[in-house]
């Protein structure tokens, strides 16, 4: 879960890393007050999660509080990448001698976090790594052995930085590594990290991404930051259809029937499980099909849940038919899913044989499931029909169907 800059800076500040005397607000008049308090030129920065805010006009330099207010008003109304800003950050315009970069990310291959440091900051670290690889230092650190200053010292020194800059940077990079671990971040980045005329360092911008699975153990921090429990902060906001999918999944604790993502096609998908859904979605598209949604069922959901999901998909405007398909199941019961999707059709006044383009779920309790499907005249397939072939048949049916 991405944090906004103003939240990320708060995390940085709490970790004991110096930040500027900034203020966050959603009100232009308050922006003027913050600028007044700062008492000098300020930078007004849009608080959005999408990148490219500088180019989009989301960052402006103000000389007076009046200017700060006017810019804040403009920026608050400016959509960037389809997102309305959460607010603006009013930041003192720092006199920076040099910009540095410090970051920590996971290395999934080594299975350890890695500190990344560069004396070239203010631009994407990927770009620096490509153009001046000798200016980018990396160092893994242990998950269980103590984190110590020398590790940060090594990574900074490896980029050629020495003198008092080195000694002042060591605690900053160490604290960044510690906050990364303590807060279950998957990315913690200070860029730029500015060196001021007096030789001190200050974080001028920060990017933080907290692991979703770990949110539960950072409730206090998230509450302090004002992050709502319902905020997903995905690349795009959840649609009402997707939120309804979450509700279906939350109806009881048996199994999963959710992870719904909306698309705009005419073939509704009731598919599973994790890998099966990815495979089936690809297969439907490979055959020229137009999915109305992505979803995942698995872990043996109840009849009510399977029914709820099928109803949701069937009720989506533009959906002509649904395809009910999964890779071979061993935990989820075929008969339960069959009952759920048939119930959904019947309750909505549809003929299951008409609405269900294909049912391809082989595995546990398949004999019982196939019996029920036969009774309702639903076209079904066993494991001798591949996922790909089942998807092809579903697409063929819907394309032959009257509009």
């Amino acid at each position, binding site marked *: 879960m991405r944090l906004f800059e103003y939240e990320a800076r708060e995390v940085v500040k709490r970790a004991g890393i110096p930040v500027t005397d900034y203020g966050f607000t959603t009100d232009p008049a308050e922006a003027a007050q913050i600028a007044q308090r700062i008492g000098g030129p300020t930078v007004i920065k849009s608080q959005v999660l999408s990148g490219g805010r500088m180019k989009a006009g989301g960052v402006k330099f103000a000389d007076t509080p009046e200017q700060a207010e006017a810019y804040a008003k403009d920026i608050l109304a400016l959509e960037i990448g389809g997102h309305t800003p959460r607010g603006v950050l009013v930041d003192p315009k720092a006199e920076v001698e040099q910009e540095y970069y410090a970051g920590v990310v996971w290395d999934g291959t080594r299975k350890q976090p890695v500190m990344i440091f560069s004396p070239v900051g203010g631009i994407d670290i990927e770009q620096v790594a490509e153009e001046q690889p000798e200016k980018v230092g990396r160092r893994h650190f242990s998950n269980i052995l103590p984190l110590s200053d020398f590790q940060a010292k090594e990574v900074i020194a490896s980029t050629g930085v020495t003198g008092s800059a080195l000694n002042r940077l060591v605690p900053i990079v160490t604290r960044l590594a510690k906050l990364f671990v303590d807060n279950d971040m998957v990315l913690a980045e200070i860029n730029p990290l500015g060196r001021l005329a007096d030789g001190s360092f200050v974080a001028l911008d920060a990017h933080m991404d907290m692991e979703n699975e770990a949110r539960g153990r950072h409730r206090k921090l998230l509450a302090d930051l004002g992050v709502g429990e319902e905020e997903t902060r995905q690349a795009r906001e959840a649609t009402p259809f997707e939120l309804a999918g979450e509700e279906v999944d939350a109806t009881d604790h048996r199994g999963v029937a959710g992870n719904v993502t909306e698309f705009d096609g005419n073939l509704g998908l009731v598919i599973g499980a994790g890998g099966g859904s990815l495979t089936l979605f690809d297969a439907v598209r490979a055959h020229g099909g137009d999915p109305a949604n992505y979803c995942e069922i698995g872990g043996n959901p109840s009849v009510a849940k399977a029914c709820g999901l099928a109803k949701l998909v069937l009720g989506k405007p533009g959906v002509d038919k649904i395809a009910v398909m999964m890779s*071979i199941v061993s935990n989820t019961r075929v008969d339960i899913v069959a009952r759920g999707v048939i119930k959904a059709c019947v309750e909505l006044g549809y003929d299951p044989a008409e609405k269900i383009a294909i049912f391809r779920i082989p595995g546990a309790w398949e004999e019982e499931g196939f019996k029920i499907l036969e009774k309702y005249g639903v076209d079904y397939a066993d494991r001798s029909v591949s996922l790909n072939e089942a998807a092809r048949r579903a697409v063929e049916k819907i394309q032959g169907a009257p509009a």
Partner: protein
Amino acid sequence: MSILIDADTTFIVQGITGREAVNLTRECLDYGAGAKVVGGVTPGRLGRDVHGVPVFDTVAQAVEHHGSPIYGSVVTVPPAFTKDAVFEAIENGVQLIVIVTERIPRRDVAEMVELANLRGARIIGPNCLGIIVPDVIKMGGIGGPAKNASQAYTPGPIGVISRSGGMTTEMSSTLSAAGLGQSTAVSIGGDAIIGQTYAELMPLFEADEQTQGIVIYTEPGGRMEAELASWVTENNSRLPIVAFMAGRFMDEMPGMSFGHAGTIVEGKEDTAGEKIARLAQAGITVAERIEDIPQMIGEKIAQGSAR
């Protein structure tokens, strides 16, 4: 032969009194020659039994009761307690740990893996269904009840490694239907950080005489395929490999995660397209459809050259 486990493997189930774990225990006891499930652990439940398997409060009690070291453990405790359970297993001499639990923060996983490395133990998962040696033994929920597992898995020359539990069974069933059985199938888990990657399991398959070819299931996200590609090139592997890549549509949707926690396209290396190119460079055939896999791997084995 097989990799990781065989008919003599002893293991415990941590969290054995949970609903899912009770089923899993039954399945393992029923499958093949019948797994040697020598104990279960649920704190506070000492003295109970689950399908005849004695329940203990601690792993140490289970080891003491068994009278000699226990080789494996299937861990099915809730995410908040998994790290402690795995540490407990490792510190009591367990060598092979299958973590079934989903939604474990990766910091915990990384800590478990590092301790396992220090102690010479091996972790499979988390978020996986375990390991199966067809007709011999299964360790974990892989394949489901014994009857269903027997339907999908048959003994033979193919090693299967998959980031998706369900797709391990789907692919093995497709191979079995074509007369290509499996030496061992491993569900390695779909998270961003896992105990054993493709490349880390390859040396075991390489050393296994029964194994003549490898089939893998993979997804966008992470660098595991690049790691595999370098491994087979650097080690001049004898084993031909066919890979199936799901989630190709995700390339068009950066920043969105589908399927498993580990699938997200953040950088260029994460995309399905980039991964397919890397695998192909290393001589690994990438199948477009699962039904094509048996013929592809069969031909590669018949040609007698890995690449």
